């Protein structure tokens, strides 16, 4: 079930009382932003897909078994297709004509979903922000930055130039980019795979027992913060750059094998019992393993 409301932005009846006579006087129909709100009843773990060429997408979790979509389109040159199919809600922005100007192509979405929703988001430019959603997530962007907060599940994020930030994320993180910077803060995950080419990577989180943490770039800094009580096996290699280390490492525990490159600046060793595995590599960037303050 859904309840569509097509209304201009900031619409209310008081405003209407002023606006309508004004328009009648001027004889002009504004080609301004248009607001659309839809509600969909869903079951547990609904799937929400969003395909938007340009705009800000904000997704928040709420306690209702309902998906609410509030869309603002820049002009009528884009068509917003928002439909429910079973336990799935599909949101898509279509370009109506080939002559549309870039400014008119934009559509912003504010979406409220149940906490266990699964998200699939594609946004070329603009920004993507998701908070408190615990279901699996797949986000792909070109230039748009991505921010996740208090998320969990299987998280896959792929950008071309967009940056990525994840705060208090858990679950399984798989992140890739070409020139995006990554900031992974207060992470509680046993699988982090982050790869960017020309970007910095900051990891400041827990190293869980049996966790795997793979961070890789071509250039830029890779910075990992650890606490003295952490337990991990570490491999850090920069082919043409430097490795700076503040951890008191011992030779790797028996049975743990790391591939030792023939060239470059490399560092291998264990901290405490070597329960997690950290693999850091860069082509000509700097790797910093820093003690947390």
């Amino acid at each position, binding site marked *: 079930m859904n309840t569509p409301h097509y209304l201009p932005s900031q619409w209310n009846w008081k405003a209407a009382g002023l606006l309508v006579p004004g328009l009648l006087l001027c004889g002009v129909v504004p080609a301004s932003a248009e607001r659309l709100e839809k509600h969909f009843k869903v079951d547990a773990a609904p799937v929400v897909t969003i395909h938007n060429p340009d705009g800000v997408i904000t997704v928040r979790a709420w306690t209702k078994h309902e998906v609410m979509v509030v869309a603002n389109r820049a002009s009528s040159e884009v068509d917003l297709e928002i439909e429910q199919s079973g336990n799935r809600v599909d949101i898509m922005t279509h370009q109506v004509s080939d002559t*549309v100007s*870039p400014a008119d192509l934009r559509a912003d979405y504010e979406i409220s979903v149940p906490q266990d929703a699964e998200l699939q988001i594609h946004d070329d430019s603009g920004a993507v922000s998701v908070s408190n959603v615990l279901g699996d997530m797949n986000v792909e962007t*070109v*230039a748009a930055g991505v921010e996740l907060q208090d998320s969990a599940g299987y998280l896959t994020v792929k950008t071309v*130039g*967009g940056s990525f930030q994840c705060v208090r994320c858990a679950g399984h993180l798989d992140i890739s980019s070409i020139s995006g910077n990554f900031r992974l803060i207060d992470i509680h995950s046993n699988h982090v795979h982050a790869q960017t080419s020309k970007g910095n990577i900051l990891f400041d989180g827990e190293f869980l027992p049996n966790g795997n943490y793979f961070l890789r770039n*071509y250039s830029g800094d890779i910075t990992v913060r650890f606490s003295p009580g952490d337990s991990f096996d570490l491999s850090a290699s920069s*082919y043409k750059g430097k490795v700076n280390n503040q951890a008191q490492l011992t030779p790797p525990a028996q049975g743990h094998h790391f591939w030792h490159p023939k*060239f470059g600046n490399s560092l291998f060793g264990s901290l405490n019992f070597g329960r997690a595995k950290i693999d850091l590599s860069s082509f000509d960037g700097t790797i910093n393993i820093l003690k947390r303050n």
Partner: protein
Amino acid sequence: MATPGCKDFQNNFESWMEGELPPDARAHVTDCRSCARLIEDLGSIRLAANEWNASEEPPARLWTSIRTQLVEEGLIHEPQSESAKAGWLQGWFPRLPRPVLAGAYLAALVAIAFSLVGPVTRRVNHHRWAEDMQNSTAMVSAQLDTAEQTTGFADFDPEATASLHQNLAIVDNYISLCEKSVQEDPEDEMARDYLYDAYHQKADLLAQISERGEYGR
């Protein structure tokens, strides 16, 4: 080095890939690590390709290109019949995705190229090994350049288009740096690993650029 057994097997391995497993071929694969590895690599590529949703056939030149490369490398030989010539690889990839799949076929090419090179320990002759490496990377590089020339940028979103151009340049720069490092020392696994990644990243980016034109209009 290929033995008469290898040649016989490779002349008929299309049948093998189509599921025909004659006892003598099975025996050969059991004994020959080289052929077993070839089958394993191509099987993996086929499996990966089948996972992509297909809607259009890839361009014929793709098959010609891959086949030519394999023939040149001596891994396969021209089949005797015209029918076999027409459809051997199509048979493996019955529903390969659209040509955007630049990513798909280029990734396949990359995989093949690097599987030809193999680990350092498999090559006794350093010069031959370095030469193979150079040939393989040159082939992949040329394929990527061709794909780039035929890939059109959808320009309805200037910010995204600018980002794609910029990042393509970044990847090209890394490819140049890595190729230089590999040329300086072809045995360096780390440099090869980064080069492989850079090729793969470019193929993936070209696929993404192609796909952008498919939606939003």
